[in-house]
């Protein structure tokens, strides 16, 4: 009887679910992710805005903190999105829903949320007087460069959370896994904690490493001054060596010539990082790696959810 009857295909199902997700945006309280992104960024910028893209240390810490915000935002966007409605997905799968359409709909919906969050984060950074790089590398402006990077990090983290949400059976389990993912991403970013040996290879599998690298590259990291050595020397100015204060003499000499900035720049030059070299190809390389991880997470989410029929009562 039904042999010749065609039902909605993957593409049309994707539009059905995309529409449903956007409709439910207001009632499901998903809108809260936008003010939350603004508040978190404002708190972080209060601390990092002065030195971000101004000094090497400030840029490293700032990029790390901003990347953390993006990963946090992305993960909390979708960590519960699938697992909280898993029985509904199972019912609909039984009625002919394609899992790929369902996940693609989530991808589109989350993409828009992430765009909004990245725009808010960028705007709050701007209002907090973060000095954005003047030389763009990918887009026509430095701000849009940073925006694009923030978006890609947020979206990739979002897809990682979507994968976890597709794998686990309930929101409690999903929320238990989040801290482990966050710690992995933050510790293995390779920025704040030195990692050597074979463990360093793990860095390549984090979003944070590529996000921070892209931001530092865009922030012209290698041309910035390094202030820590100068500050340390200043702290040592009263140290006596054989009843003399040679460090104080050096400091006086440098200040007399007005060469503190040159000293700091020289220190920065000695701290050159090849991966942060401010060239377009470096940024594009980071983008490709982040996008590949994003796609991998999405594909794995589809595969994971295809087994939903195996769920027991």
């Amino acid at each position, binding site marked *: *009887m*039904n*042999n010749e*009857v*065609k*039902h*909605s*295909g993957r593409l*049309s*199902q994707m539009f*059905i679910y995309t*529409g*449903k997700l956007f*409709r*439910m945006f207001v*009632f*499901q309280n998903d809108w809260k992710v936008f003010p939350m992104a603004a508040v978190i960024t404002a708190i972080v910028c209060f601390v990092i805005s002065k030195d971000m893209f101004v000094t090497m240390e400030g840029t490293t810490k700032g990029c790390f903190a901003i990347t953390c915000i993006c990963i946090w935002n992305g993960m909390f966007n979708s960590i519960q999105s699938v697992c909280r*409605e898993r*029985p*509904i997905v*199972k*019912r*609909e799968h*039984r*009625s*002919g*829903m394609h899992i790929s359409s369902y996940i693609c709909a989530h991808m589109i919906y989350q993409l828009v949320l992430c765009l909004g969050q990245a725009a808010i984060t960028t705007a709050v950074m701007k209002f907090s007087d973060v000095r954005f790089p003047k030389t763009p590398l990918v887009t026509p402006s430095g701000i849009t460069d940073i925006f694009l990077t923030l978006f890609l990090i947020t979206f990739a983290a979002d897809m990682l959370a979507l994968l976890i949400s597709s794998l686990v059976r309930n929101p409690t389990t999903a929320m238990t896994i989040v801290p482990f993912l966050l710690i992995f991403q933050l510790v293995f970013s390779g920025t704040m904690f030195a990692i*050597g*040996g*074979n*463990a*360093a290879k793990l860095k390549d599998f984090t979003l944070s490493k590529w996000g921070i690298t892209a931001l530092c590259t865009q922030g012209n990291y290698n041309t910035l001054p390094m202030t820590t050595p100068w500050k340390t020397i200043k702290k040592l100015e009263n140290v006596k060596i054989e009843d003399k204060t040679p460090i104080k003499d050096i400091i006086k000499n440098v200040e007399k010539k007005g060469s503190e900035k040159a000293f700091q720049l020289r220190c920065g030059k000695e701290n050159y990082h090849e991966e942060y070299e401010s060239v377009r190809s470096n940024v594009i390389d980071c983008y490709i790696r982040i996008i590949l991880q994003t796609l991998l997470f999405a594909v794995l989410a589809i595969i994971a959810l295809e087994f939903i*029929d195996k769920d027991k*009562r």
Partner: protein
Amino acid sequence: MDIISSLLNILSIIGFWFIFKKFGIKRWHALIPFLRDYRLAQCANEPKDGLIYTILSGIIWILSISYSIVDEKTVLFGTIELKDALALLMLILVIPEFVFSFRICKGLCERFGKKYRWIIGWFLFEGITSLIWGLSSKYVPLEKEKEDTIKETVEESGVNTTGSDKDLTINIRERSAKTLRSKRTLLKDIHMNIQPGHMVLLLGGSGAGKTTFLNAVTGYEMADADIELGNDNVYKDYINIKYDIGFVPQQDLMRGSDTVYNTLYDAAKLRLPKSLSREDRKKRVDEVLDSFGLGMLKNTLVDKLSGGQKKRLSISMEFISNPRLFILDEPDSGLDGVVARELFEKLRDIADSGKIVIVITHTPDRVIDLFDDVIVLAKDANRSGRLTYFGPIKESYEFFGKESMEGFLLAINQKEEGGEGRAEELVKKYNDKMKLAVGGEV
């Protein structure tokens, strides 16, 4: 120290040997490390925990062996000493191993009807404790493990049914589930033919296989069976035929943050043929909304609906595609008598429009007048779901010798469940009746 440890191990083996004997498990399994732990967990009625415990024990054993043979200077990832990493891993795994071991010991105490303080004995003096439990005649399991023994039960009817080109014809020979250890028959020898326009009650005690039966009929979980809906074979043409089968689950599985209309419209887009125009689709949605009394609530959020309204929406989501076979799993759960009655009257209307409606309910007597037929499933001696009765409601009272559907359940439920334990007798009676009906010998 090694001698004492070996002696205790030997005591454990002897204890396990006799414990397994008490459960009818192969005694030589006590000689094999890990297997004996798994088997003991089965005695405790905790096979899943036993499997996890055995795997954990195996991994810890491998780690401990590795710990004793690796060089102290071996470094992992350039920074961590391998010995430290192995010790850390063992420490992490020992915690769940302890928890699962505790569960198994607790299960053993329950199986033997002994106090929980014996758990300490199992943990601290396994050898002596197992020996006491194995050798003492005071330590006897309350109920032997059922899965290991295949009991004699009612033989199969061997009667296959055939129907007309509009009937639902069900011939389930067997539906089984395989585990690592064994195969369990969930359903066996179920044959029937349901005509269009009939509303059928599906009755059965807990664990009789009602949901398994429905999943097998809808093709969601395939069995060794022939299921035909009219001229279509449900299993062979599942991709297409699934749109002709509406299955309403027990829970109201809908998104609360969407409106009634949109929920139903999206269901229509998923379930109705692609060729249907937008106008026709909208028309169908409006028709179904009105027919289920949801027209006035179309802009209401699903979360704001009452239990009865949610149930009606859940049913209408399946009804939207106008299925030929309509199956509902406890649609009246959580509804009061009046609302439940209204719902079943609606289902009666659906059946009267030429559909086959099959319903599971735990309170059938309040709406029994609305049903045409009843299917009664019961567990046989091997806990397989068997057909105890299929036929008209009126004749069923005579068959069971009872005056209510609850009486049927009382008759088929096992004695330990508070029933009369007549399942086997009634299965045989029904099989004989079927054989006579097709002209065979009893």
